[in-house]
């Protein structure tokens, strides 16, 4: 059996036909755990991993209704950056970024974190003001970020259209060099494997159908594979957070919407960085396989179906062509959607709830992949200590009552 991944083990396996350990062992649920994590996405698996690794709690189960990584973790455009505007948010995402930088080694699993840089383009004067504001805030917070002008963008990305004679000319951009992409599935699997090596049970095809609450305290969960008792339950089920909350008689201030993405057929490398544009609604990078991975906008209606409207992807294709006219004859190979849990202030909720022992980690909306390690890390500590991790404090669910919103999407309205 080959436990540890290395060149040595790979050679050995190749010569000897020795087999690999199961990265994701098939297990059936025990009747009782110290902690149950609902949702086997990146965040849930990371939570379990850090519970076991940093908090010494190994009697943990991750309960996933489908296959692990099959939620948004497995269907996102994998953009990772930490150049967020608000101090609270940037601290959290930067914490995550630092974990990313050592993640493959930590997990002994190459998650293919590729720091190829992320551009956030600006197309209007107000975009540029916002970019300046954000970049300056980042630098003061110790997050690497710079403002670059159109000329420099063109030098770095020769295929981008920086002509002034387009509908939304590129005026400039913020750039985070440490940003990039990672292999989405690998992130889920890497955390799952590392967690199960530490003793965590990862139980797939097991849907939580109810949460047992007695006298304000969580007792366990009912699942399609039977009842499981637990002292603490962490809910990390992204698009399904409202559904789980309802099981415990709670509400969370999120709404579920479809968010779509599509990929082109694979081509030889041509785009070596990540380009995002909010004004024209599209982001693009080229995967290591060669396909262009493109993220579109969100559909305005509530949905639990992992698909959206044609109009959104078509508009997104147009936006990508505004930026990269050379992609016009490139073909869309596959499109899909995920259900994102959108929070009113575009910031997550990492929080205990009114039910003792029940914790929620949700509301990551359209941008939580980049937070995967950081989110799991602070959530693990929050559950373990029954006290919010310092970085998670501002993300308490009570902020909607107290008014202490973080409002990451702030500058939305263009006006004069």
């Amino acid at each position: 059996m080959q436990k540890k991944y290395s060149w040595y083990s790979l050679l050995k396996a190749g010569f000897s036909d020795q087999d690999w350990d199961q990265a994701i062992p098939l297990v059936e649920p025990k009747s009782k755990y110290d902690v149950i994590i609902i949702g086997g996405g990146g965040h849930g698996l990371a939570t379990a991993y850090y519970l076991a690794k940093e908090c010494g709690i190994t009697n943990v189960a991750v309960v996933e209704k489908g296959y692990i990584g099959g939620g948004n973790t497995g269907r996102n455009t994998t953009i990772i950056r930490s150049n967020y505007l608000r101090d609270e948010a940037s601290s959290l995402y930067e914490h995550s970024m630092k974990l990313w930088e050592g993640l493959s080694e930590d997990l002994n699993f190459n998650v293919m974190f590729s720091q190829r840089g992320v551009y956030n383009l600006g197309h209007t004067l107000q975009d540029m003001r916002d970019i300046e504001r954000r970049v300056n805030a980042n630098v003061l917070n110790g997050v690497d970020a710079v403002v670059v002008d159109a000329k420099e963008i063109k030098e770095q990305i020769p295929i981008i259209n920086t002509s002034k004679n387009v509908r939304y000319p590129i005026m400039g951009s913020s750039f985070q060099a440490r940003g990039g992409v990672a292999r989405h599935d690998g992130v889920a699997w890497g955390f799952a494997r590392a967690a199960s090596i530490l003793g965590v049970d990862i139980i797939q095809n097991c849907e939580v159908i109810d949460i047992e609450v007695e006298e304000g305290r969580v007792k366990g969960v009912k699942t399609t594979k039977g009842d499981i008792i637990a002292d603490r339950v962490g809910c990390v089920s992204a698009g399904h957070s409202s559904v789980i909350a309802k099981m415990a008689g709670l509400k969370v201030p999120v709404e579920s919407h479809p968010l779509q993405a599509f990929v082109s057929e694979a081509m030889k490398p041509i785009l070596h960085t990540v380009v995002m544009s909010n004004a024209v609604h599209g982001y693009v990078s080229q995967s290591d396989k060669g396909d262009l991975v493109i993220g579109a906008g969100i559909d305005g209606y509530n949905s639990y179906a992992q698909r959206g409207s044609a109009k959104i992807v078509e508009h997104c294709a147009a936006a990508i062509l505004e930026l990269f006219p050379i992609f016009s004859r490139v073909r869309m190979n596959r499109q899909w959607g995920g259900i994102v849990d959108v929070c009113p202030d575009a910031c997550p909720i990492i929080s205990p709830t009114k039910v003792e022992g029940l914790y929620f980690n949700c509301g990551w909306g359209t941008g939580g992949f980049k937070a995967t390690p950081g989110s799991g890390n602070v959530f693990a500590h929050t559950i373990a200590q029954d006290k919010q991790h310092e970085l998670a404090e501002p993300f308490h669910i009570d902020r909607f009552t107290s008014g202490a919103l973080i409002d990451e999407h702030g500058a939305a309205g263009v006006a004069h």
Partner: protein
Amino acid sequence: MFLIDCPYCKESRDQNEFSPAGEAFIARPQNPEDLSDAEWADYVFYRSNHKGDQWEQWVHTNGCRKYFLVKRSTISHEIIKVAAFGEVTSDSEL
């Protein structure tokens, strides 16, 4: 792309004429000042975000500009019913 029956235009039109306008039956409190912060937050921020058949508001933005009610499955996207505003006032009706 949905095909939505506007109860005012009495015609099915493409989704691109409409905009979704949130869950239905979220009435603005009569006397906001009398509410606790938590009650007010519930009105402003909390939605039931139902998985299944849900009543919601749509507006025929590029048509008759009327807000109306749609009962739609958030699982299959099937539209089960539409109603003019006020025709239905709570989940249990119809």
